[in-house]
């Protein structure tokens, strides 16, 4: 039996734990700014430094954000949830315990639709982030370092940990889950969901089992993937590694493995003997979280249309293909951009074409978000209008759009400044044809005496000369008609 055939006998079982940094103005338990990239240890106070005597006060905004998640993923939100302390020693954790939620989280039992399949979400809970360590010397890991520096700006930043059920079966599906999750979190405005900057961190629990079985075998937790691509690679690698292990009768141990992006492999991490005992107990410095009806109502009212529903609507309203709608929604803000153009008069079909084409290309090239574009959606609508009323041809329109995207000028302005308006006026085009005929009388004579093949060639040449003379602005439909009239006339 070949390896390939054997592999078909196995099915992967994947669950994802996603940590999302919430985009609140302040931290979870104090009023320090929650911002990325500040000078080390400037956004700190006695509370987030865990100084003796300090006490946490829950940021209500975090609860509001959690309630939005509750709505968006159809979680049930119990009347009360509580915080626990997770106790372990680590230098970047100021209190040497993390305040987190344990057996009474704020959100339980939700769902996310991933490409038509419902994936269960076991829970989502609030917790505080840790600081960041920089280990100097050795391999860059804490154990061999000469010394370590700690930045506590991130300590106490609010996180939601979102734990899926082990209901995914391929790397592709796991990527789809994360990208759908990101889409929803983005539109409900709770996070800027940037995997590369660490505001969204994904750990994967991977196990495999024989196809047709419903057992859950020993799972391995894979960490350190910082893009969707590396998530997919890491899961594929881990699946293959585990299949290999089973087929060579090696035992899989429950462990945490570290994805090495450069080497394309996972490594077992140094683990302590036995499993860590976090000695969870209810956090006595906080009271239970009991969101009242008005908070719940506010969360409900704040939820905009979610990506899955929007995709269905755009397909039906605009008559675009499902995959086009998917591309529009995959780039945060792009669907808003296209809808903005439609609101300014463009057709849904045209707005989609330009948005997923030239606009998206420009965004990717320049690592921009649609919100940052100098050309606003009504500008795109203006361009689309110029094309559809015949005053600009498609090819020139692409150039104009490019310039408009770059410097933010209105398309009409660019067309005027560069004299690109399409010349449709019969008199003007006719005069151009007459000029070209006069300067190329040989070609006209060749056409008159030629066979079909020569006629076609000479007509093409003359047509090209007229377009050149018009600097591309001649309306080709008018030109075609006049050219035939004058040659045959």
């Amino acid at each position: 039996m070949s390896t390939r055939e054997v592999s078909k006998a196995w099915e992967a079982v994947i669950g994802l734990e996603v940590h999302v940094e919430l985009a609140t103005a302040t931290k979870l338990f104090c009023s320090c700014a929650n911002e990325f990239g500040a000078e080390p240890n400037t956004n700190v106070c006695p509370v987030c430094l865990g100084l003796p005597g300090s006490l946490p006060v829950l940021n209500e905004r975090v609860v509001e954000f959690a309630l939005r998640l509750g709505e968006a993923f159809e979680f049930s939100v119990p009347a009360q949830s509580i915080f626990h302390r997770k106790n372990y020693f680590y230098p970047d954790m100021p209190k040497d315990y993390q305040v987190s939620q344990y057996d009474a989280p704020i959100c339980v039992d939700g769902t996310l639709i991933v490409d038509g399949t419902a994936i269960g979400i076991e829970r989502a809970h609030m917790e505080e982030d840790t600081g960041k360590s920089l280990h100097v010397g050795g391999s860059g890991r804490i154990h061999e370092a000469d010394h370590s520096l700690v930045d506590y700006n991130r300590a106490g930043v609010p996180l939601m940990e979102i734990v899926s059920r082990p209901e995914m079966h391929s790397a592709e599906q796991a990527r789809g889950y994360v990208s759908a999750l990101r889409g929803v979190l983005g539109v409900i405005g709770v996070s800027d969901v940037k995997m590369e900057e660490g505001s969204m961190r994904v750990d994967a629990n991977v196990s495999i089992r024989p196809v047709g079985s419903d057992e859950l075998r020993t799972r391995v937790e894979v960490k350190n993937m910082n893009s969707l691509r590396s998530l997919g690679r890491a899961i594929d690698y881990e699946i293959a590694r585990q299949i290999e292990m089973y087929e060579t009768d090696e035992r899989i141990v429950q462990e945490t493995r570290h994805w090495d992006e450069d080497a394309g492999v996972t490594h077992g991490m140094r683990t302590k003997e036995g499993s860590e005992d976090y000695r969870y107990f209810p956090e006595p410095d906080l009271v239970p979280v009991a969101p009242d009806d008005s908070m719940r109502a506010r969360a409900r009212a704040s939820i905009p249309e979610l990506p899955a529903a929007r995709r269905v609507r755009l397909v039906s309203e605009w008559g675009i293909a499902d995959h086009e709608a998917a591309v529009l929604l995959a780039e945060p803000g792009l669907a808003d951009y296209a809808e903005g153009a439609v609101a300014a008069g463009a057709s849904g079909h045209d707005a989609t074409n330009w948005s997923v084409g030239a606009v998206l290309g420009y965004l990717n090239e320049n690592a921009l978000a649609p919100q940052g574009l100098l050309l606003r959606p009504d500008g795109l609508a203006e361009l689309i209008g110029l094309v559809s009323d015949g005053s600009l041809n498609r090819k020139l329109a692409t150039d104009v759009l490019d310039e408009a995207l770059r410097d933010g000028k209105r398309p009409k302005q660019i067309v005027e400044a560069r004299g690109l308006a399409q010349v449709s006026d019969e008199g003007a085009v006719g005069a151009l044809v007459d000029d070209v005929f006069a300067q190329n009388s040989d070609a006209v004579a060749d056409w008159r005496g030629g066979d079909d093949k020569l006629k076609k060639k000479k007509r093409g040449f003359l047509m090209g000369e007229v377009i050149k003379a018009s600097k591309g602005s001649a309306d080709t439909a008018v030109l075609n008609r006049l050219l035939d009239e004058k040659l045959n006339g």
Partner: protein
Amino acid sequence: MSAATRNGETAAEIAAAVRSGTRSAREVTDAYLGRIGAGEEAVHAFNLVTADAARARADEIDAMIADGHDPGPLAGVPIALKDNLCTRGVATTCSSRILAGWEPPYTATVVERVVAAGAVPLGKTNLDEFAMGSSTENSAFGPTRNPRDPSRVPGGSSGGSAAAVAAEFAPLALGSDTGGSIRQPAAFCGVVGVKPTYGTVSRYGLIAFASSLDQVGPFANTVTDAALLLDAIAGPDPLDSTSIRAEWNPVISAVDEGIEGLRVGVVTELLDGIDADVAARLSEAVDVLRAGGAKVGDASVPAAIHGLAAYYLIAPAEASSNLARYDGVRYGLRVDGVDVADMNAKTRGAGFGAEVKRRIMLGTYALSAGYYDAYYGQAQRVRTLVIRDFDAAYRDFDVLLTPTTPTTAFEFGDKTGDPLSMYLSDVCTIPTNLAGHPAISVPFGTGANGMPVGVQVLAPALGERAMFRAARALELGAP
């Protein structure tokens, strides 16, 4: 003889004199600093006396008076602060080597409040390390002596604050009470000590021992002075999530309302095992209350006797987590090691005393996987029973009466070799902490050895007004 005359001037008298301009705050402060200078060496009530800051603060108070401003109800009243209350820029040690030299960048809410009320902090008082103990013998900086008899302990853990008031080093002091740490030393030193309802006094800036039990409260020579101080510190604090949101209903106006018709229950379960002289004072206290018009009967709180066991699981469990942060990374002591874990271990090994280590070990064990339900979980269930039994008792009574401690102050070294017998001195005080209820210890005569006896009045949550009425009656009728 009333407590007020026994100990000279009261805080209320000082504040009245300073506010009316008949005495200056500076003069009062200098007098108390003088007494500290003369007596502190024998007592060791303080870890730190902040004489210069006290004089400067007193001068500010006097300047306010001169400008026609009212400095507040504690105008010019010197106050001693337990050294587990954070004071900005002033060393705060918890009597532990691990915090030696640490100066907090912020001030505890209670300290802000007493200063805002016009009080003059004199310094930081000694305690059992991290408030763990009942004799102040667990201080890393040496024990405090009982001013009534220097061969005896002042009690603990707020032994320094109790001794400071008893020795007239300060008319008022703040302590903290986790299982009796205000009331037991108050009883041993013959002063008034109050543990308020959990959540009435902010814990922000109180260095935590056991968060669900800790509460800051007053020491004073009189019940009225204690009420004055409690009113100054109580009330909601947005910096403490466990603080009760409702405005504080002042107790000062209740103190002299009398006890006609007040229903007082003597907790029968807490009479077992107490010394005969203490029991005798308690029965005289009952007579005093009856004479004042109270209806006294027997009350039953069956779960109270299990309180001690539950407390010695819950408090160490919370402490094991609260004290994890003393790891040598950010502040306080650091003993270098080969790596971070080794540095943590060496720092904690050198920085904590034996009792603190014992409780961290107990608490770590009680929270461990596989033991949690049998220990911490079970203790929480007992706590629920204690609350239920108190609730039942308070259907028949307005307040309850117990001795504060089973014995009077013991001698140094008596119980240090036997932690369990030391723990037993808190048997009568612990149940109120578990329930979150208020209690007050009032001096009531002396024992066979001439040392003070304290009787304790308990009340349901926010029942401080009735509690103070009974306490005042006991003070007036004390032998």
